[in-house]
């Protein structure tokens, strides 16, 4: 590619027109709309493909642990126990029941490899929650258990106050019950 720059006339040099051109540019910039978002009062809505906080779906998860294997820094902690279920037709079937699905988000780099590894359709763990306000006042608050991951959208969005409405830690039995009642029919 060859570039031809416009030739300077003598008037351009004598009357410093290039400098005035620069002044013109900055003057035009003065009146243009500004990009600043005044954060606590105004908020940015991320695009649909924004890679924000995790979301986890208990109902879709088949407890295969592929996400934990895929995780490059091993921050996904999964506990599973087997349970025998009575099918309606009388057969007995062994199912895996998820007891624990924790992510240590403070160490997470949001690489989304867990999302890629997830075999269910749609994914049971994904990163498209449009939440970017992840700051907390306590380190421990960034350790998310299953319920917190599932109900993330219901958490307060601005981390100004300690979170009191978060669902309490449920014992593994509750999860098993949920699967028994709803998931595996």
């Amino acid at each position, binding site marked *: 590619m060859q570039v031809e*720059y*416009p030739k300077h006339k003598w008037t351009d040099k004598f009357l410093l027109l290039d400098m005035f051109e620069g002044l013109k540019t900055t003057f035009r910039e003065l009146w243009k709309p500004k990009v600043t978002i005044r954060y606590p009062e105004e908020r940015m809505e991320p695009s649909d493909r924004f890679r924000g906080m995790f979301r986890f779906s208990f109902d879709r998860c088949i407890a295969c642990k592929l996400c934990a294997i895929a995780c490059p820094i091993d921050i996904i902690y999964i506990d599973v126990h087997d349970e025998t279920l009575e099918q309606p037709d009388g057969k007995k079937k062994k199912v895996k029941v998820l007891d624990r699905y924790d992510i240590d988000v403070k160490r997470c780099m949001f690489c989304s490899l867990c999302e890629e590894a997830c075999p269910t359709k749609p994914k049971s763990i994904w990163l498209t929650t449009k939440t970017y306000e992840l700051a907390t006042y306590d380190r421990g608050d960034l350790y998310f258990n299953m319920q917190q991951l599932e109900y993330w959208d219901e958490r307060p969005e601005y981390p100004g106050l300690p979170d009191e409405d978060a669902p309490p830690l449920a014992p593994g039995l509750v999860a098993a019950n949920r699967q028994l009642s709803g998931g595996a029919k």
Partner: protein
Amino acid sequence: MNPWMLYLVWPLIKFLIAFVIVQVIVAAMNWIERRVLGLIQARLGPNRVGPWGLLQIVADPIKFLLKEDIVPSSAEKIAYFLGPMLPLVPAFIVFCLIPFGPPPTFAVTHTNVGLLLILALTSTGVYGIILGGWASNNKYSLMGGLRSAAQMVSYEVPFGLSIVGVLMLCGSLDLVHIINYQAHHVWNVFPQLIAAFIFFVSMNAENNRTPFDLPEAESELVAGYHTEYSAMKFAFFMLAEYSAMLVNCCLMVSLFLGGWTLAIGGYGLTTATLKSMGFMGGLLGTVIFVVKVMTFMMIYIWFRATFPRFRFDQLMDLGWKWMIPLALINIFVTGIVVLAAPEMIINGSVVPVGETILAVAGAATVALTLFLIMKPRAHAPKVIHASRVSEA
């Protein structure tokens, strides 16, 4: 009137009023500058304290007063303390000498060597800077101070020379006389366009403003001569810098843009017209003066937002190889034209022919420049695609 009142009390009161107003303007300039720079750079600037961030003007001094005042242990104590004070004192005294409105009410003093005194006082500002830079015992401070000294000395010459043309036309060092002369002839920008340009460039350089802000080049010298200064001492440097900017803008307006008058050839708001309106007329004149001065302060900010910094050798080149010869040529041409074509009486009125010729030439140059600026120019370089290079 009692001479004590006339020569001591009234000037003191007037000086205090001018001082307070100037300090408010200087404090406000800090906010205005940050805000306008922000707006030009696609952001908002300080907008959190009070409506539109206006209380930033109050918040900044409070912050400066409450901050810890750190003195480096290796600093030369006396010189270190003198550093911020020395540029501040002349910058304040100068406001005694500037006529903000029609004298005697709106000027603190009225001396017939006012211009000379102002130049003498403003040029002492460099001592504080170089002293502060040296006393900090920090190589970056020293570099900043030395750069500032070199720059101020270099640009003091074209700064002084550019005024000579105006003095030749007006025949006085009295700012009031110069302003009245402009009201009865034409603003000096037109006959002294080159001088006005040189004056403006030199005053940018004198105040260490962009594109001549080498003494405080952040990318090279941390903050230049005030690297080691904190709290109120740093604020003093800022105050002195902005006061000096204001002084130079006042000079620019008085010398080249008709000061508080708004008249051409004796028609319009001349000093006599304003005085006939009484106190309100004087106030109107002051408002006109302040508006003109603030316009130039805005141009300072505009320049800062637009131009990149010079290299030091480029700065010296511009000062010695361009500005000084140009100023000398300007003096030469002005002298020849004024001498060769003196005042003539046409239709019973005195017309200074030489000055008129210069004014017409200056106005034509301004008009041509404005026309060429307004005309859209070819911005983007013409791009020839690779496939067409062989053909061309």
